[in-house]
């Protein structure tokens, strides 16, 4: 690479620089993308959207911390986690799109709120906006990554080879996310009176959204052998959270039950009020210029 002529440097170079989330063809290269016999494809697409939207929307929230974190090192760490999740989202939306005949961007930018299938925990504002702070962000990350890690761990055995491969790759990332959240939970729980109070409040903020994570959806019942029944993850995840909260000297909140809306929640496309604003921001430019290429 020549530094004296920037024009040359524009034309050459290695793509490997972009370490996280900007490309994923290699990660899944060699994976058989044919749909396994007997699998309900519509249900498979719906399931990929559930897991993909969880990652996409949480990534969108986490990236709000970029340039706002408590220290530079943490800014970089949170961006890495957001990039990992964005990478997972892209792989999952792409898989859904193979059934639906749409690409990842059509699915991310051109679906309306009611078509998004993410859990509420992913979409609520836990900071840096007014809905939370760094502690609430860590509380959400702890719950989300503990749950998704348990889920992906079982998803490795999915009858869909693509889902299994996505889970295999995501597992290491999620282990890192959970560790990061646990390290911070312990430090904030134990650190100062203020940090203890904020961390406890952060847990209270996210706990009402916990039950939804373990509610079995009809799609997951249809996809036996392909999907993971989240109800089966509860005791494992509870155990992990219990251990972290104990180490941090924090109390497990008792309020786990945010009521559903006419029996529905995120997996059914019924969201919180925060979701409309999140999508308005995320989708605005893409929708403003139909036919544009990016």
């Amino acid at each position, binding site marked *: 690479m020549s530094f004296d002529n920037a024009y040359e*440097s524009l034309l050459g170079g290695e793509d490997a620089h*972009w370490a996280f989330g*900007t490309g994923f063809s290699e990660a899944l290269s060699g994976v058989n993308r044919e749909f396994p016999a007997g699998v309900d494809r519509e249900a498979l697409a719906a399931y990929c959207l559930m897991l993909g939207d969880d990652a996409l929307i949480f990534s969108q929230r986490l990236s709000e911390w970029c340039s706002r974190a408590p220290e530079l090192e943490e800014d970089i760490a949170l961006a*890495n986690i957001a990039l990992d999740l964005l990478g997972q989202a892209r792989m999952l939306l792409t898989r859904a799109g193979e059934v639906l005949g749409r690409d990842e961007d059509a699915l991310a*930018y051109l679906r309306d709120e009611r078509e998004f299938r993410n859990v509420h925990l992913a979409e609520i504002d836990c900071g840096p906006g007014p809905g939370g702070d760094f502690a609430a962000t860590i509380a959400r990350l702890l719950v989300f990554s503990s749950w998704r890690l348990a889920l992906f761990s079982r998803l490795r055995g999915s009858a869909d080879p693509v889902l299994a491969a996505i889970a295999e790759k995501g597992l290491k990332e999620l282990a890192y996310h959970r560790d990061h959240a646990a390290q911070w939970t312990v430090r904030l729980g134990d*650190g100062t009176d203020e940090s203890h109070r904020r961390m406890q409040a952060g847990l209270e903020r996210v706990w009402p959204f916990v039950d939804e994570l373990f509610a079995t959806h009809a799609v997951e019942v249809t996809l036996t052998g392909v999907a993971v029944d989240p109800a089966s993850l509860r005791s494992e995840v509870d155990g992990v959270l219990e251990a972290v909260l104990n180490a941090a000297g924090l109390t497990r909140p008792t309020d786990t039950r945010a009521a559903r809306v006419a029996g529905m929640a995120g997996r059914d496309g019924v969201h919180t009020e925060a979701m409309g604003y999140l999508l308005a921001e995320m989708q605005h430019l893409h929708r403003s210029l139909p036919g*544009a290429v990016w």
Partner: protein
Amino acid sequence: MADDLERRFERTVQSEARIEPRDWMPDGYRKTLIRQIAQHAHSEIIGMQPEGNWISRAPSLRRKAILLAKVQDEAGHGLYLYSATETLGADREDLTLKLIEGRQKYSSIFNYPTLTFADVGVIGWLVDGAAICNQVPLCRTSYGPYARAMIRICKEESFHQRQGYELLMTMMRGTQQQRDMVQDSVNRWWWPSLMMFGPPDAESTNTEQSMAWRIKRDTNDELRQKFVNMSMPQAEALGVTFPDPELRWNDERGEYDFGQPDWDEFWQVVKGGGVCNEQRIAHRRKAHEDGAWVREAAVAHAAKHARKEGAA
């Protein structure tokens, strides 16, 4: 003794060897370096904001990932550079306070607003391009830790420039609306990019001593000319024009002639009157202040932990 030290320092610098952290160095050299490297670090950190402004709205998932990775790189660059100042006895916390209290500067370019997504591409192409012109010579700067940080940074910056240019090429192949968006963005960023090299040599106060110490390697005007020469063929390949009626090839000089930026605007922005000066500093101050309880908690936890281990 002092003369010996000074002579050895001069000899080291003249022979193009590197000055390392524990070497004796003149106070002026140390101060100049801390100021310059800190300013550079601040620029990377403040520079996260104009582009970060578009992460949530990036129009494709691939662009979102690239942009987030790029802004994250800038945090890393700031971190490397603050580390380099710490080898000179400075302290990141102290420098951060100087930044948010307005006692130290950062590159004025970041006080311009990013108004469309094309700005992400143009910043990559022109602003990072100008930064590369400024920074490549610094890979050979006399202070070792600074030079080593710059080598790493320049390598990453060239990727940034490339992604910016690639975004613009893609947009120019898109709809007419997109092409108009690119040209509009170029019109807004061209002059501020030229200003990034600093005032004309005749008005630049720091250049001479810095050149002698090999902290700086080329004058502002030399670098500006080089940047214009480099950018013109790139603009032609892209299909955009620069908003300068005086810009044309000079056969005699073998270089491009070009007009002067509006130096009144430059000084106005430097002195705090830019569209975004207050916003950028307020953003950085809020992040620092909002994070104080987190940093404090981590220190408190570490102290308790150390006490427990000591007692055991």
